[in-house]
Every structure is written in C-alpha cells, then in structure tokens.
C-alpha cells in the first residue's frame, strides 16, 4: 500500500477538512507521532506511541467531562457568576499543549478550563477555584475566567477581550531577553480580532520577531455575533497575518493530530528564532457563549454538522481503525477520567471556603 505523507501546513479552505480527515484514514498516515509502517490487521504502533495517542484521547475526554461537571455544578449553585464552557473545542487545547515544553508560557481568555487542564494544571485545584474554595488555584478569588498557575507557566485566563494579547507579547519578549528558546502562545477568539490590541500586538511581534504564537480559535461566533456580521473579509482570518509579515496556517480544530502537527511545525520555527507564527483553528462551541446564553442565534443544523466531526468520536474511531487502541483501552481511559472528575468535585465540595479576612492578602507585593 502506498503511503501518502499528509502535509497539514499547507493552507486549505475549511470545507475540505472533512475530506482530508477521510483522506488521512485512507492514506493510513496517522500523525506526527511515529513513522507509519503499515496498517493491516495488526497494529504496528509501539507501546510508547500508543500510550501517547491514548493520552491525547484521555485529555480531550477529561476536558469534556470536566466541563459537563461544571455545568451540573452551576445548576446546583456550587459554581456561580459567569461560566464559559469549552465543549467542542477540546482537540485544539490538547493538540496545542502536547507540543509545548514546561518553560513555554500560555496565555488565554475567559474560556480557559480546557487550556488549563491540557496544560497539566491540577484538576482538583481548577475545580476548587470554580467553587470559590481556598484550595483553588487562586484561593477562590479568581473563579472560572481567571484560572492561573504560574508553576505551569499558565499565565491566566483574562476576561477583557483582547487584553491578553499584549501581555503575551511581554512574556515572549522576556523569553528572548533571557536568551532562552522558550516561546509564548496566546489564545483568542474570532471576536478578539476586532480589538485594537490584536493588531497592535501582531505588528509589534512581527517587528521585534518575538517568539509569540498567535492561536486563533475560530468558533464562528463572538457571543451572539456571527463573523459575517462583524467582519467584511469572510470567515478565514489566517490570510490577514501575511499583511503583518507573519506566517500563518489554517488547521482543522476538530482534529487533534492535525493541530499537533501544525503546532510542532510552527513551534520548531519559533524556537529556531523565526519570530511569530499565526495559527487559525476552525472549531465550534457546542453550547451557548456562557451559561446564560441559550444560543438562539444559530441553527441546530449547524451544530449537528460540527458534532459529526466531534473529536471525541472521530479520534477514538481513528485509533481503533488504526489498531492504535482497542475498545477496552478507551473504556479504561474514560473510567479513569470519570474518577478524576468526580474526585475533583468531591475535593472542591470538601475544601474550606476562604475566610473573609483573607481578602486582605496579596494587595501589594
């Protein structure tokens, strides 16, 4: 059987993506994880590769389950305020983080649970933060939109749309200043592109050749606004990066392996001193903007179409088809995730509430 090497870095229009996923399956070239040898009855993946692939599945499933648990606990009143779920976008965070190193900085916006978990932030402490408990990442002071874990160089969810971009540029500046080959990555949505800070930061990163990876999660809506209502240039953003002199690529955000490969390519160039990169992932949030949003502005059929590409369906199917896993492997991962998330909820319920006088802590250095 002839093996076609799949080249994800070439720019492709979104509508071809599904075809491409099929093409990957047919071509039997799975990923950047290991050289593909052949596919037949017997899996030819080594145990290390299998474990890595299974872990990608586990992480995506962890995010999905974590978010579902958040929704449940929001209705129970354990989580309050404003809650934005990442359901549907899991393949992006997991694919991205799988190629980062511990020294890299991650900055994101308020839809931040998926990014935090994929970055390896402790599940218990993340959930406890949402519960507003003392054991939370920011001792309950930040809440859902402001997860922060400096030990993982997870430099926060930020809820002022666009506000996180210059901040990420500052982090990447410190990477070069200190002479490391660490990078910073900043996540933002299609809505954030309309803020001036986005354009300022793009220009600045290009001029200064900062190791800053602009990662656009294009889920086609900013709150209730479809892209077409607020942007004249269509739903593809990546071509605009070129006008700043930044190399850009479009990727299927429902395909964790493609995200991973595109990332590996971009990060490799950045570590070699190539300056900023721009990646646009097309993806979709299955639920409303926040818990308060019934998402009446979009069609059920649109959602259904995206759900057909659900990474939590397509990826395990791919693993099974490739012989990279058997059903019981997947089941074991799901089981361990259920336990992890239930444990996180129990941990949060059982954690002390921060005492009122602790509001006096950490005002000034």
């Amino acid at each position, binding site marked *: 059987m002839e093996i076609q090497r799949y080249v994800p870095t070439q720019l492709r229009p979104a509508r071809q993506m599904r075809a491409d996923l099929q093409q990957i399956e047919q071509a039997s070239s799975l990923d950047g994880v290991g050289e593909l040898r052949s596919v037949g009855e017997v899996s030819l993946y080594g145990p290390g590769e299998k474990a890595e692939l299974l872990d990608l599945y586990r992480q995506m499933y962890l995010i999905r389950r974590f978010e579902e648990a958040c929704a449940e606990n929001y209705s129970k009143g354990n989580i309050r305020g404003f809650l934005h779920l990442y359901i549907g976008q899991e393949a992006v965070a997991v694919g991205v983080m799988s190629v980062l190193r511990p020294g890299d900085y991650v900055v994101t916006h*308020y839809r931040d649970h998926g990014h935090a978990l994929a970055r390896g932030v402790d599940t218990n402490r993340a959930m406890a933060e949402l519960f*507003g408990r003392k054991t939370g990442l920011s*001792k309950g002071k930040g*809440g859902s939109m402001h997860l922060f874990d400096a030990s993982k160089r997870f430099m926060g969810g930020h809820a002022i749309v666009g506000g996180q971009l210059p901040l990420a540029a500052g982090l990447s500046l410190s990477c070069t200043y200190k002479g490391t080959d660490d990078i910073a990555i900043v996540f933002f949505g299609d809505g954030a592109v309309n803020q001036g800070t986005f354009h300022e930061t793009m220009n600045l990163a290009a001029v200064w050749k900062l190791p800053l990876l602009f990662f656009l999660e294009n889920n086609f809506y900013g709150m209730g606004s479809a892209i077409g*209502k607020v942007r004249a240039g269509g739903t593809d953003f990546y071509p605009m990066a070129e006008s700043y002199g930044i190399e850009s690529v479009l990727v299927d955000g429902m395909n964790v392996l493609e995200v991973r490969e595109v990332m590996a390519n971009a990060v490799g160039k950045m570590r070699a001193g190539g300056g900023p990169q721009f990646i646009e992932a097309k993806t979709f949030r299955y639920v409303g903007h926040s818990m308060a949003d019934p998402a009446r502005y979009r069609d059920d059929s649109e959602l259904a179409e995206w759900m057909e590409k659900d990474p939590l369906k397509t990826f395990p199917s791919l693993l099974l088809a490739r012989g990279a896993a058997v059903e019981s492997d997947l089941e074991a991962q799901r089981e361990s995730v259920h336990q992890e998330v239930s444990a996180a909820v129990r941990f949060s319920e059982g954690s002390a509430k921060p005492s009122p006088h*602790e509001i*006096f802590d950490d005002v000034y250095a």
Partner: protein
Amino acid sequence: MATMNVLEAVRDAMRLEMRRDPNVFILGEDVGARGGVFLATNGFVAEFGEQRVIDTPLAESSIVGIALGAAVSGMRPIAEIQFGDFIWPAINQLVGEAARARYGTAGQRNASMVVRVPHGGGVRGGLYHSQSVEALLAHTPGLKVVAPSTPYDAKGLLISAIRDDDPVVFLEHKRTYRLVRGEAPEGYYTEPIGRAEIKRRGEDLTVITYGLMLHYTLQAAEQVSESEGIEAEVIDLRTLRPLDVDTVIESVRRTSKALIVQEDTPVASIGSEVAAVIADRAFFDLDGPVRRVTPPDFPPMPYSPLQEAEYMPSPNKISYAIRQLIDL
C-alpha cells in the same frame, strides 16, 4: 403609573426617545438581534430596524469613538458598553475626546451622546464583571455621570440624558436590573440631571449614597429606626457629576452628621468629593466626623461568595456605621 424593574425602565426610556427623535440610534455589541447582554434593547430591531440598532464588532474604543463622531454631527447616539469593566479600552475616546469636544471647539460642536454602562458587583462576577468605574469618569470635567437606582429615576434620567447636549455616562447597577421594582409613569417624563433626591426623611444624621447602595442604606435606616429609633435622612445622589451639593449641604446642616455609603473603593472617590464639600460648606454645623462605608481599598472584588460579601458594603455594615456615628 406602571410597575417595572430598572431594566424595563431603561428599555422604556430608550424606546420612547427612539420613537420621538429619528436622530437617536443605538450601537454596541450584540444590541441588535440578541437584544444586548442584559436584554436592554430586546425587541428593538423589530421596531426600529438594523439601521438604528447597530451591532458593532467587539471594539469598545470604536463604539465610543463612533458615537462621538456621530454626536458632533448632530446625532444622538446611545452607545452600550456591555459591562463597566469593558469601558477601559474606550477611555481615550471618552475622557480624552468626548469630554473635551465642546470646550476644544469653543462651543462649535456638542458631544450629545449617551454611554450606557451596566456596572457594580454582587453578582459573583469577580475581577472583571463587578467593577465600579464611576470615580475616573466623575473626575472628568466635560462629562456628566448619572447613576440612578430606582426604575422611576432610571427612566426619567435616561430620557434627560438622551436629550442632553453633553456626553452623559449612564451607570446602571446591574444588580438592580431585575431586583428593584417600582412605579414609573408610562409615557414621557424627565428627571433633571444634577439633582439629588432625599429618599427618606430623618433628623438624626444624613446618609449620602447612590446606586445599589441606596437600597442597602434604606434597609439599614429601617433597621436602626426600628431598633433604636434613630432616624436617618437618606440622600440618593442620582447624578455623580455635576454633584448636587446644595441638597447635601442643606441636609447635613439640619442633621449635623454625615455618613457616605458607596460600593466603590474609598481613595479619590465620589465619597472623597462629598466629604470635601461638606468640610468646606458645613464644617461648623457638624458635631461629628464625616464617615464613610466603602469596600476595603483593594483592586478587585473577589469571586468567592463569602469574600465578595465581605468586600461589599451591606445593610448590616451600614447600620453599624450609623450607630457608631450616633454614639460618638
């Protein structure tokens, strides 16, 4: 009279003015089909069309700047900022530009615009959905800053704000939107900008407040009246710039004691200004210090519910401060 909540009052005022004056239009994020994050413009596209109820991209600086540009050409835009916390990207357009438009053109042009801003906390919004943003705005000459707390005032003051020829920042406390119901006339009426109102009569002390804190203060006033027979006079400032100094001074001269209650942090705040004015004009009528009830002087309101409660002034904290001042 009709009974409505603060949100309905705001909606009513805008609808009436949109009907009356074709120069009035609305712009902001998701104000159109979605009707705004708080549904203040719910149903407006159906009645007024997309040309007058304009969905903007996510760009506050542009929203306010465009409103200003339209205003100096004679329009009467109403710009919506979804949360007070998101106004900072627009500050140059507001403080640097709109506030100076008339003065800088020697009166050739007015910035006849309203910027509506849901503000304040107590909604578990944490760092970025709870802020009090009034101090900087009220500090800025050229702007008017209105902060109603009842449906009656919200409607009458918003109609005035839309008709006003100067830039008006209209602060709507988001916690009052659905919480506070009250009577308001159905049709047109206006309440004057720059006029405070005595919301409760009393002779033992004057409590000066605005926004959500008015309601907490009224509760506190009832508590101390029932338990100790202390009768507090409660002034709702309603407008933070220009401040109605006369109403405050007249009351303080009668009661000889002043307490200021605000949700914003204390330093260089509305309360600072009120205290300074009292010291200047009613010093010899006072028989006690001017006291303030405010949150601690911290940057954000914490998310965790217990800590949020600790941070916010409450009826109990206010009644405690009233008793202290009376016992001095």
